[in-house]
């Protein structure tokens, strides 16, 4: 494999990994605060729809992004209401949110555009175009480093750079601020946080809504970030679940989340590009490559290779002592 092909595969891995990264960080905030979130998929899907639809109607990708975030946050609010306020089962709430998004996007989409759930194709300012970083064209001639800078690092849309910037930001918020300390504490031992006079409900709602924002960006990326041009029915296609898998694979940490999502993005890129891969004596079927993120996650969860320990209070509603 020459450098050109390698860079193409890596580049496509970054593109495919970006929505996973954003959704994974969304899950990170929520689950670190003790609220399981299997509704990442649904929030992304609804966000992708509203981003695509509003970007088309207004002609502005940025307004689309805002609409996507708003759509995702509305579902996050439902999740918060069900799992924090009414102390319902967080997993069941997540399942409901996924189906709600799956059905509503088609119903509203068909009603607005009559295209079977799709939005019309986006052109010009209605979608995020790729950015050429300064000097990328000038340096393209430099051997090895030039193409890496030009093809791999430069030439993505602004949302990709936002996603990458979100990693150190998430790390800083979680591990270097008072809010982050409290957020992690509320996921481990909410009673202690409550005793310290900090509101468990408010902290968890903040975390769940932050997850809504990040899922909103992830969804907007899917629908409005070039080369994508509009929303398509069920366009998340399980990405929310891969992001969830990546979150576990990354053991609920931001930097490892970057690694895990890029790895899973790369796996997808490889399976798209090469289909069945011959490894000497036998052929690795494309289906195996597609299932690999899930298999890896199960292996990690089983603790055969390192142990993934979720936040201790995850999944439990907090009931104040009376």
């Amino acid at each position, binding site marked *: 494999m020459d450098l050109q092909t390698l860079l193409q595969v890596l580049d496509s891995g970054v593109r495919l990994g970006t929505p996973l990264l954003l959704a994974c960080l969304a899950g990170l905030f929520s689950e670190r605060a003790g609220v399981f979130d299997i509704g990442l998929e649904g929030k992304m899907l609804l966000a992708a729809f509203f981003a695509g639809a509003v970007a088309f109607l207004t002609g502005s990708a940025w307004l689309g992004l805002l609409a996507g975030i708003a759509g995702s946050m509305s579902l996050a609010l439902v999740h918060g209401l069900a799992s924090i306020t009414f102390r319902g089962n967080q997993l*069941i709430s997540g399942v409901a949110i996924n*189906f709600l998004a*799956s059905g509503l996007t088609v119903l509203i989409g068909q009603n607005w555009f009559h295209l079977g*759930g799709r939005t019309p194709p986006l052109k010009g300012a209605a979608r995020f175009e790729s950015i050429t970083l300064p000097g990328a064209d000038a340096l393209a001639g430099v051997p090895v480093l030039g193409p890496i800078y030009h093809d791999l690092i430069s030439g993505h849309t602004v949302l990709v750079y936002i996603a990458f910037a979100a990693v150190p930001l998430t790390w800083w918020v979680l591990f270097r601020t008072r809010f982050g300390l409290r957020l992690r504490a509320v996921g481990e031992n909410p009673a202690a946080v409550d005793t310290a006079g900090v509101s468990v409900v408010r902290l968890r709602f903040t975390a769940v809504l932050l997850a809504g924002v990040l899922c909103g960006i992830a969804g907007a990326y899917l629908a409005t970030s070039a080369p994508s041009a509009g929303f398509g029915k069920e366009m998340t296609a399980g990405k929310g679940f891969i992001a969830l898998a990546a979150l576990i694979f990354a053991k609920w940490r931001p930097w490892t989340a970057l690694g895990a999502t890029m790895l899973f993005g790369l796996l997808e890129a490889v399976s798209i590009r090469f289909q069945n891969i011959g490894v000497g004596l036998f052929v690795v079927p494309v289906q195996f490559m597609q299932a690999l993120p899930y298999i890896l996650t199960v292996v990690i*969860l089983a603790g055969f290779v390192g142990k993934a320990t979720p936040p201790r209070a995850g999944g439990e509603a907090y009931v104040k002592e009376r």
Partner: protein
Amino acid sequence: MQRLPVWADVVLIPVMSLIAAFLFSALVILYIGENPWEALKLMVDGALGSAYGWGYTLYYATNFMFTGLAVSVAFRASLFNIGGEGQAMLGGLGVAVVALALPWPHWTLALPAAMLGAVVFGAAWAAIPAWLQARRGSHIVITTMMFNFIGAAVLNYVLVNVLRPPTSMDPATARFPAGAHLPTLHELPLIGGIFDRNTPANISLFIALAACVAVWALLFRTRLGYEIRAFGKSESAAVYAGISPFRITMYVMLISGGLSGMMAINNVMGEAERLVLNAVEGAGFIGIAVALMGRNHPFGVFLAALLFGFLYQGGAELGLWTSIPIELRIVVQALVILFTGALDNMMRMLVERAFATARRRAA
């Protein structure tokens, strides 16, 4: 907080949740410019108004009884088996392997063998997450969810590379032999006349009904059922009483996976008579809604499965005759899961408050 009367818990709250789900669905229908009342009438007419309609309603209900029971049994042990979809897929594979293995002379021989295939494959697919939960502490919701995707990949691989007839491009198995054909309800003596020739409802319906009774007997009339329920109420108390968490987790998930797998005798053997890629069509997930709606009781599951069968057939009719897309069914399903599952406490609080007020008035 005082205890609610049993009828309020078992009937009133689910019915209120259902009404809430329907009200929100009505708002959605209003929003897209259709009349909810007309839509409901069309659904009732389409799903129950003709032999054709309720043939389909019963066919869907049969699927949902199996998957609903599967989720319920696991819920009773406080295990959330979200992997019904994958287990039903693998159950389909089990049915296909059995049906294609021999030139079956008659369905009375083929059906028990296919049921065994479905149960073994479905249970096997649930066994791995169960073992991982019981022995390695992996969260069963996540592992069963992952196994849905892995199952889809396995099925895809097997259909494309192994079971697909060499002359076909379609990722599906060959047609099952004629001897493996299950009688449809129309073909049955005595009651056959009231069913339409063109509906897929078949003899699996009776197996599903028998499964409801069997699960009821298991849960409420056997020692294992008692242990399952005790384990579900309090794991630590169950351990103190000498109940092994490993044993219960394994048994429950094997039963649950087997029930999900059994769905395949209806959709794969009874309807399609070959295994296609997307045979399950989300029925595994509807099992969650059915179990929640049916309060994890086999009789409740039976009623909820009929309701969802109605919803599925009625929703298909809406998609055909109105501008309401067929996906309305998914919205209703989501709302039912939301209100009966996640927002159950909200309804409970409302009802408890109403009862408290009523009691104060009476006093």
